[in-house]
């Protein structure tokens, strides 16, 4: 089914929140509309649901991979070139821990950045925006079905949108 993007621009956050409530009442699922803002509004301020992300998995995974790799490298090199110092064991944890810490952190950082790049991809199918959002206006981007288009436009206008554009 063909879908269209409709962007309503609001100069008042309360009006934008009202428009979100009205869309919800009209049966538009929350996954079909997004608030576009120039600042991070506090959780729930616009009446929207919680957005969850699993970014924390990436540093844990990366840290584990980095730890294993550094443990392997760090233990193989002294075994390959043994060096006895004052009767200390060839392979010992204190010096190895320095290498493991480095490896684990490097892995965690690398994987976090990869996770960020993936997680930051915009979760909107029709990428419609407006420069006025950077001046403090709030955008309400609705991904509406063809038959819902006029209804959505009416809802946005009635809620006080200063401008409504379609794509």
């Amino acid at each position, binding site marked *: 089914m063909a879908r269209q993007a409709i962007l309503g621009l609001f100069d008042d956050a309360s009006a934008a929140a009202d428009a979100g409530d009205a869309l919800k009442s009209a049966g538009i699922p929350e996954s079909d509309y997004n608030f576009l803002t*120039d600042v*991070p509004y506090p959780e729930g301020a616009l009446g*929207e649901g919680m957005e969850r992300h699993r*970014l924390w998995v*990436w540093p844990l995974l990366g840290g584990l991979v980095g730890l294993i790799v550094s443990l392997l490298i760090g233990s193989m090199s002294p075994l390959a070139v043994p060096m006895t110092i004052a009767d200390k064991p060839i392979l010992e944890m204190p010096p190895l821990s320095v290498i493991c810490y480095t490896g684990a952190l490097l892995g965690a950082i690398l994987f*976090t950045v990869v996770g960020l790049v993936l997680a930051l991809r*915009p979760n909107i199918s029709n990428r419609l925006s407006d420069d006025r959002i950077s001046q403090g206006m709030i955008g309400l981007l609705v991904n509406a079905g063809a038959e819902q288009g006029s209804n959505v436009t009416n809802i946005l206008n009635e809620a006080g949108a200063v401008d409504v554009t379609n794509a």
Partner: protein
Amino acid sequence: MASETQAHPPADHGHDAHGHDAHEHGHFGPEMWVIPEASGLVAEVNEKQRTTPGIFRMVLYAGAALTILGIVGFVLKAMTAGFSDHRAWGFYVATFAFVFTLTASAPLAACAFRFTKSHWRRPLSRIAEIFSLVSIVNILLFIPALIALPDIGVMTEGGEQMVRRSIWFQELVNPSGWLLAGMVGLSFCSVAILWLAALPDMAQSRHLVTGFRASLYGKLAGGWYGTKKQWQVQKGGLAILGALYFMMVVFVQFLVVSDFAMAMIPGWKDSILPPFYTVISFQGGLAAILLVAYAMRRWGGYRDMIGQAPFWAASKVLLGLTLLHTYHLFAFFITYWYGRLEVEQAILNYLMFDSYIGIFWAQLFFTFFIPFPILVSNHARREGWGAPLAAIFIVIGLMLWHIRIFAAAFAAAPAELGGLYYLPSNAFSFPAMLLPVPGATFPDLWDIFMILGGVGIVLLVFRIGMMLLPPLSLWEMKEGSMYQRVDTLIRGRYLVLTKPE
């Protein structure tokens, strides 16, 4: 422009609703809390970036000239001294360590104060993050230092292994790989923090810039729309990367000071030095941020965006770090003085009371005796100039500290048996000692060029960073405008804060 109603009291602010003469700003001047008007902030900051004040142009040219001087000094030093004797590179290593100390901890300030959700940090965040770009330079500066670092172990002609004390028990050659990996990881993390924090600002400035910046912003922030999920991911990402950066920066500082200072002086075993170095780095990083912020406020045209409050608040943190610095210095001294082992006395004499006594006292004055009274003065702190003034002395003092520790360490002993090296069988029982205590080493002309070049490259790269990226964290400033206003309470005007979390 700052909102008249928000940033400054209205024209009739001398009278409250009851007709009383009010204390206009409580005990605070009108410039204490400056809350810019959010709607025009992006355009205004972009306009300020376009109209570069003369002092910033001067910083760029001076940075470029000093960098060229540093490169000339480095090339001539390499041609005349080579890399075979590490003692020739003490001042270079001191310069690198100074630049690293100042710039590596600066991005941490943005993360730390963001963790604590303080509002006053908002104008300082981007300044702190732009120091991440200098971390790329740190990698380049680090490579010659690694080349100059003597091997951990070497084979004698008789087939015996000679080793020197270090944290790397298992590496015969110098541990360049792991050290470089740590430094690259640190730079990568700090640049990632800069990118993530500047992402919304680059996206919001896209339509206002042209040429290279437009292309850069398009590539780096093309996918940013400001959806709820993106803001959530950005917030989570900054928290995670900030935590990882903290873990990494402290560790790399431990590696640098252990390998390039402590391990280079025979017999120097000091558990206080790594945390001491970290405290110094935090102190230097904050001092550098405050200096830049003050220059932007005073001469850069950002007076209506940066109030006195960031300096007032940060000066207390700087005072704490200055006291911590001095405490660690005293703890280092008293442990060795009380221990009275011959090796401990030798190290005290070398670093403090004999060879480098002049530079030691000069450093102590610059890092404590001069900034301390400035920072404890409530007047100096509140007026906004106290912390930057103290910061100037602190930065000079830290330069001297690095010369006293790193240049002295590299000059302490030759890389030969009885110098840095001992046979493995008696490496840990034979008391490695700095006897007789060597005299102070002075820089030659190429060393001075390299020291100036180190300062120059920081100025140059930082200034380029300020030209390329929005120099203020626009989204955080706008967020701050949403959560703060100056209002009347009884007879004074005070800052009213919203704390959503």
